Structures are given as C-alpha cells and as structure tokens.
C-alpha cells in the first residue's frame, strides 16, 4: 500500500472539488483549502469553491516514471490560471500532448489519480480537461 487511506479520506473535499482559501485580511485567494492564508498568515479565511474553469498558462509533457504513475505516461502537467485569478498546477487529460496549447480553456473533472494494486484503494480526484464546446 503506497498511499494512506486516512490521509486521502481526510482531504477528500480538496480532491473532489477545487477549493480555494480566501483571506479576509490581505484579500488574496490561493489554491487548496488551508486554515491559514499562505500569503499573510492570517487565520481569518474562508474556504470557497472554484468554478474549476480556467486557462492553461504553461504545461509540460512528463515521462518521469514512478511506480504509481507508469500506467498513465506521458502525463501533461499544466499551470492553470483559474477564472478566479488563482494559479494551480495539475494534470491535464483527454487531450493529445501535441494538441495542448497555452491559453486553452480547461475545466476540472473527476478522474483516477492512482491505485494501490492489486487489491488496494483506487484514488480519485480532479484533473483538468479541455472545455467541451456545447452548441
């Protein structure tokens, strides 16, 4: 077993939704749910849910093999600017690496992160995919 079930379960809200920490003192919002603002240290924060939509600022196609990612390689890891103006790094799926573009609109959807083979837990969480244009 490579991952801890309790670590994952405790943070599940942060893996199933794009949560931001909004600081009432300095006014800045940041990725991931925290009890304190990572910019100013204030505990006067609220956790807000992001729309999960944004644009690719930059990306890399990764071939760096670990024993928990090898079945998914290559991975596209992107720096995304959410519509709320907050930056987040995360995986981009459902697109050929050669077709990823800076400025591409993306949205967060539920996907599989990894699994504890052969009988362990499967870890699900949000990844980004290109926004599907609805006509």
């Amino acid at each position, binding site marked *: 077993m*490579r*991952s801890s079930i309790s*670590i*994952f379960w405790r*943070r599940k809200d*942060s*893996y199933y939704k794009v949560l931001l920490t909004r600081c009432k003192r300095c006014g800045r919002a*940041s*990725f*991931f749910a925290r009890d304190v603002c*990572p*910019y100013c240290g204030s505990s006067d924060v609220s956790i807000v849910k992001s729309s999960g939509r944004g644009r690719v600022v*930059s*990306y*890399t*196609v*990764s*071939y*760096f*093999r*670990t*024993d*928990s*990612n*090898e079945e*998914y390689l290559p*991975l596209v*890891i992107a*720096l995304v600017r959410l519509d709320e103006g907050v*930056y*987040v*790094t*995360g*995986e981009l799926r459902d697109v050929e690496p050669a077709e990823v573009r800076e400025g591409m609109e993306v949205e967060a959807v539920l996907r599989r*992160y*990894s699994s504890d083979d052969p009988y362990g837990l499967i*870890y699900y*969480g949000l990844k980004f995919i290109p926004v599907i244009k609805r006509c």
Partner: protein
Amino acid sequence: MRDVYIASSSMINISRHFNRGYKELAGAVVKDVVEGASVEQLDYMVVSSMLAESSLNQLDLATILTQHLGLKPMPAIRVDTGESSGLAAVEIAYSLITAGRADTVLVVGVEKATEFPTRVTNRFLSKVLDYEVEVLRNITPPNYAALIMKEYMKKYRVSREELTVWPVKMHDNALRNPYAQLKFKITPSKVLNAIKISEPITLYDMFPIGDGAAALILASSRVARKSGKEVLLVRDVVSATSRPLYLRDDITRFESLATLISMLRRKYGFRIDDAVCEIHDSYSIYAYIILEELGIARRGASYKEVENLVYVNVSGGLKARGHPFGATGVYQVSEVYNVMVKGVGGVKFDGAFGLTHSMSGPDYNSRLCLLERVV
C-alpha cells in the same frame, strides 16, 4: 559567538554502490575524517539522509550508525530538510559549536538511492514536494523544473539550445573530480537528443541517481588551535523557506535564496567575485537562476557567462558530480574546503571566501554556507 573551523573532510566516489550498504559508505568516510582531524574526542554526531525511512527502512539512523561504527556513546541526531539535508546537518553542527554545546562535531551525510529500482526511488524523492497537495495529484519535481524552464525561455527569449551550456560545462568539470559519478564529456546535441524527462527537460538536464557519503569534523577554535586546523572558518550557515510554486508571483525567481545572499552580503560585506562556489544545480535551469540570484550573472543572460566561470561547481555540480540527496550538502562543503586548501584537479582557489548553496525542490528551502580563509 565562538568561531567554528573545518578540522577535516572526507568523501567517497558517488556511484551505484550495489555491493555496499549505508553502514559501509558512512563507515568509510567516518574512519577517514576522524584520522584526518587529530582531535581527541567527538562531542556530537549529526547525520543527514533524505531517504532513510523510504529507502533503508530505518528510523533513528544516527543512533544505529553510532552503534554499528563502534563510536563512543555520544549525542547523535539525524536531520532531514529534503534535498538540502546535508547542509542542514552542517548548519546544526555549526550552531552546536557557536552555542557552546560542543567543541567537536562529526557531520555525516549518507544516501543509498539505489536500493530500489529507479521508478521507486523517483516516487520516494518526489516527496520533497507537498505530498497531500502535489504528489498525490501526480506532480513530480522535474515537472516544476520544466514549467520554470519554459517560463524562463519565454521571459528572456532564450532558446532551448542556448541552455545546453551548463550541463556540458559540468561534465567537463567532473572529469577532474575523482569523486564524481558521471565522468564523461557530453555535447549540446547529446543534451538536446537525450530521452525526455519532462519537456523541455532531458536526461542531461537532470542529476543522476547515485549513492554517496561524505563527512566533516567541525571544531571550535579551542580545539582547532590545538591541532593546527585554524585554516578555514565556517563564517555562517543560513537558511530560509519559501512558498510552493503555484503560489509564486514570478516562478523564474528563487526568493529564499535572494533573501539569504543579501543577508550574507550585508552582514559580512563579502563579494561574490571573491568566492569559490558550489551551487545546487539539480536541473540545469536551476543553475541559471541561482547564478542570477547570487549576482554571478545578469538576469536572463547567465547562459552567456557560463563558459567563463572557473570557480563555480569545480566538482561538476549535482549534474555530473552527482546528487546523493542527504549527502550532497556535505560533499559541497568538502569540495570547497579542498579547492581552497589543497586544490582539486589542478584548480586551486586563493581568494578569501567559499560559498555553498543547497536547496530542496525549486527553492522550497535554501541554505547557504559561507567559508572564510583565515591564514
């Protein structure tokens, strides 16, 4: 505050030491460093290792090592600050002596990174990032180096080809270093055409996986004077942490390093062009940024100045000397000591200062050690 000197240093060659465990690697450098120091007793041992729990299945490495090596019972502690653990061990040893808690401290950096297949070690080493926020979401350290490299190339209009100069230079330097892991020349085209790790990072932009051990004995002036070792003073060791990559306003800057170097400049008035340096070039893009933060090169133009750098990473750096994680910071101090006192492969530095820089991840923490010649 009491002065701290380097009484002795020792290293072994960095390699895939399949036939030797961490006890043998540490044992070899401890024996050597104790013999070289001519001190009567050791007051404290500080051990650094990044992967002990993961790779060695061992907790409390410091105690187990004192037992195995037959050292007289003494206080022993293991430190971990990720990839900069080795320099953190030097920092703790320095603090113990300046605070008057010890007169002689044995520092041992040891890493066995090859006990598991590379893909397993890759998972272990990725845990220098935030496990809950980054690692579980499949982000690994070279991904960040790649994002930073792309941003740097865009911001300063630098081509991928122009950024091959660092690894080529490091492989040249490593040819002179008897302890280096990668002792062969490479060319720009070899860098560009090597297997991709995380685009645009290729195999030759990244450190190799290897085992190593290095040791130092630090001593107070009382002890150093007695043994005639008042040669190289550890002037200061400073460290700082910074924000994760996705919370940075400018990912082409290393803020904690910038804070540390300006602190040392203010406090000691030293000039970087009067120093021999070992820097933490885990990925070649990090080397360019570090050169700029230290004031060795102009922003966005460090690649143009690499050719002329004689006294930066004489060892070959993490790129070619190697990066046995928890031991790397101890190697760096030993290398600067050697190049200032004895000379390495025909290179001897006669200036006043030595500087080593070690960090974890992309400057998630940084540490600087300033050495000064006193005779």
